[in-house]
């Protein structure tokens, strides 16, 4: 960069920062720190280099809530950088965060939850969160009177549950989450979405606690919600619940299959996929097979399987999602073909399956189609 002779003086610090482009420390300073003064009213000034994070945490002990909010804002900005995150986590500041979670000011609590949310984006943060037993204060905060705080908490739990160890750690919370599901109110749709997503991750690791608390009945009610995300997550949780045998039996008993069959015709791909997955798990049981055949779901499934020919030129991600839908449908058909009536229905569709076996691009789909074919044409 060609520097002129006459350079205006107050902006010299920027020039220095530009010259010394250090790897991580300078990058996120600029927005926050220009010549040491406060740029934005919502951010506290940040010290330079290694002192940034410890200094901010010291400032967090300030009794004035406004200042704490500003400090938390700056912290949230800084924590995007992995090195700062590491510093936060290993500097022993987690117990201070724990204290902050019990703060009276609602904005402080919300910001702390956002900070935790940013921490969970990194594996180290997640592990430290699990180790430092922050789960119980977090679960207390679930009953917080402020809505935005609860939403942030749900986000944190959601991210945490994506980790298998996190899902394990959150299993004791499942009764409380189910309780929240029961007492759901109208204006908490965002929370509902996040709650259901957390539940599905928890049930993926172990579905038994949720099943024992009438999970199936509750979720069946949610399957008919207007909002797409709610339906999607409810169907996902139902899919996880249908994995153990007890869940399958409950699903057959509670007459959930008609609802799921209706959801197969939903517009959203995710909802279709999840409900197809649930049906796939349920038809393994003979009772499920019977119900599915009674409700005449097989043509729908066949239709879904064969529809993928038209969408060849879609982009990768959508195609991947379609692929899972096709996989689920094929597996469902395989299970249905084990029943005599199903086999009769599907024997007509053998050419379609053959076509699928050879023509499809994806190896998994081909394999599934082959299995289906084998089952359909099996003779004792």
């Amino acid at each position: 960069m060609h520097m002129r002779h006459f350079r205006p003086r107050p902006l010299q610090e920027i020039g220095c920062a530009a010259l010394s482009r250090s790897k991580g420390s300078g990058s996120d300073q600029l927005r926050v720190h220009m010549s040491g003064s406060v740029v934005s009213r919502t951010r506290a000034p940040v010290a330079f280099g290694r002192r940034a994070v410890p200094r901010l945490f010291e400032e967090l002990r300030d009794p004035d809530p406004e200042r704490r909010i500003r400090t938390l804002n700056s912290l949230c900005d800084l924590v995007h950088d992995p090195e700062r995150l590491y510093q936060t986590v290993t500097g022993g500041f987690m117990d201070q965060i724990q204290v902050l979670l019990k703060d009276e000011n609602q904005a402080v609590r919300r910001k702390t939850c956002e900070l935790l949310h940013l921490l969970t984006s990194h594996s180290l943060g997640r592990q430290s969160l699990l180790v430092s037993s922050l789960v119980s204060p977090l679960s207390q905060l679930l009953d917080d009177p402020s809505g935005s705080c609860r939403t942030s908490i749900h986000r944190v739990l959601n991210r945490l549950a994506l980790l298998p160890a996190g899902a394990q750690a959150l299993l004791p919370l499942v009764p409380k989450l189910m309780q929240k599901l029961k007492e759901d109110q109208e204006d908490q749709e965002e929370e509902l979405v996040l709650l259901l997503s957390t539940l599905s991750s928890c049930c993926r690791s172990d579905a038994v606690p949720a099943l024992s608390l009438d999970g199936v009945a509750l979720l069946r009610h949610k399957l008919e919600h207007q909002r797409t995300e709610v339906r999607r997550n409810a169907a996902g949780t139902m899919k996880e619940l249908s994995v153990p045998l007890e869940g399958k039996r409950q699903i057959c008993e509670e007459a959930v299959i008609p609802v799921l069959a209706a959801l197969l015709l939903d517009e959203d791909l995710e909802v279709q996929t999840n409900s197809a997955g649930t049906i796939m798990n349920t038809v393994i049981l003979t009772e499920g097979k019977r119900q599915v055949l009674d409700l005449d779901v097989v043509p729908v499934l066949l239709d879904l399987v064969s529809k993928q020919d038209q969408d060849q030129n879609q982009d990768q991600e959508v195609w991947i999602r379609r692929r899972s839908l096709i996989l689920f449908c094929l597996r469902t058909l395989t299970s249905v073909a084990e029943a005599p009536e199903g086999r009769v229905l599907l024997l007509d569709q053998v050419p379609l399956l053959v076509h699928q076996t050879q023509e499809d691009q994806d190896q998994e789909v081909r394999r599934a189609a082959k299995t289906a074919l084998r089952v359909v044409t099996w003779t004792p």
Partner: protein
Amino acid sequence: MAFVSHSQRDPNGMYTFSSRPRAVENRSKYREPPQEQSHINYGNIMYDRRVVRGNTYAQRIIPTTTQPDPAEIQRQQELRRRAIARKQAREQFKPKTPEALQGRKHIDVQTELYLEELSTVIVATDTECQTDAFLDRPATPLFIPAKTGKDVATQIEEGELFDFDREVQPVLEVLVGKTMEQALLEVMEEEELACLRAQQRAFEELRSAEMAEVQRLQEQERRHREEKERRIAQQKEALKREKEITEKIAARAYTQQYFADLLPSVFTSLRSHGYFYDPVEKDIETNFFPWLMDEVHNSLEKRYTARELLDTIIDDVTQKRLESFKDPEPQPQETDK
């Protein structure tokens, strides 16, 4: 402010006005608010003395040179006397130096070098001026309003002059660069997370599909096994039943054979036991023969009794004979008992 203006009536009766020259009062730039002025200056025209009343066409013209009335003269004399009295009064009120204290005397002392005559009358000279005739009215000068505000001066020092656009470029580059870096970092982070999540989801779905397959196979296994067990049980059942049947058949054959000659033997034994009887015979047997026997018995009884009787008689006889033999002599015993 000393009003040194005189307005009086001339001896002719004309109204004259004269006043000492004085500086213009420091009036405000703008007029007073209009109401005050109108209050002061505005007078009802009907009561204004200067306005002529009545008809003007037959008014008496005031003669320029008339003898003043004696009343008029008296009035003027009065005025003059009053003016002098006023002047004297005013002179009285002029401050004078106080009387000297006891033992002191006021002396006039000359302090200045030059003597100066003190008089209230200021030496004045009359000057006249007269504009040139037939001069055109000069053009009005340009109206430049008075200056207001503070005067400020500025001076551009050495080195203060610069071209903003050129100077700001490096700063701007740095700012934009850092912001973009930060934004890129965040976007990469999000993308990474989204990638991870997508991968996780794809894996999850594959896993669910595979798990479904596994469970289906398990279920199939279970069903087959149960079917097999059921069939085996059925088969066992069948076998058992068959065995039972064969046993039954064998038993039947044996018993049949065993009881083949049962019937004749039964008949024989029955016949031998007298179950097949001729009714007449039976009747004879049951009814006639007992009676016959009874009769026979009776008759035999009779015979026995008769025989017994006979026996006793015989016994008696023999006894008697024996006794009779014994009595005479002891004879060898007869044992014909």
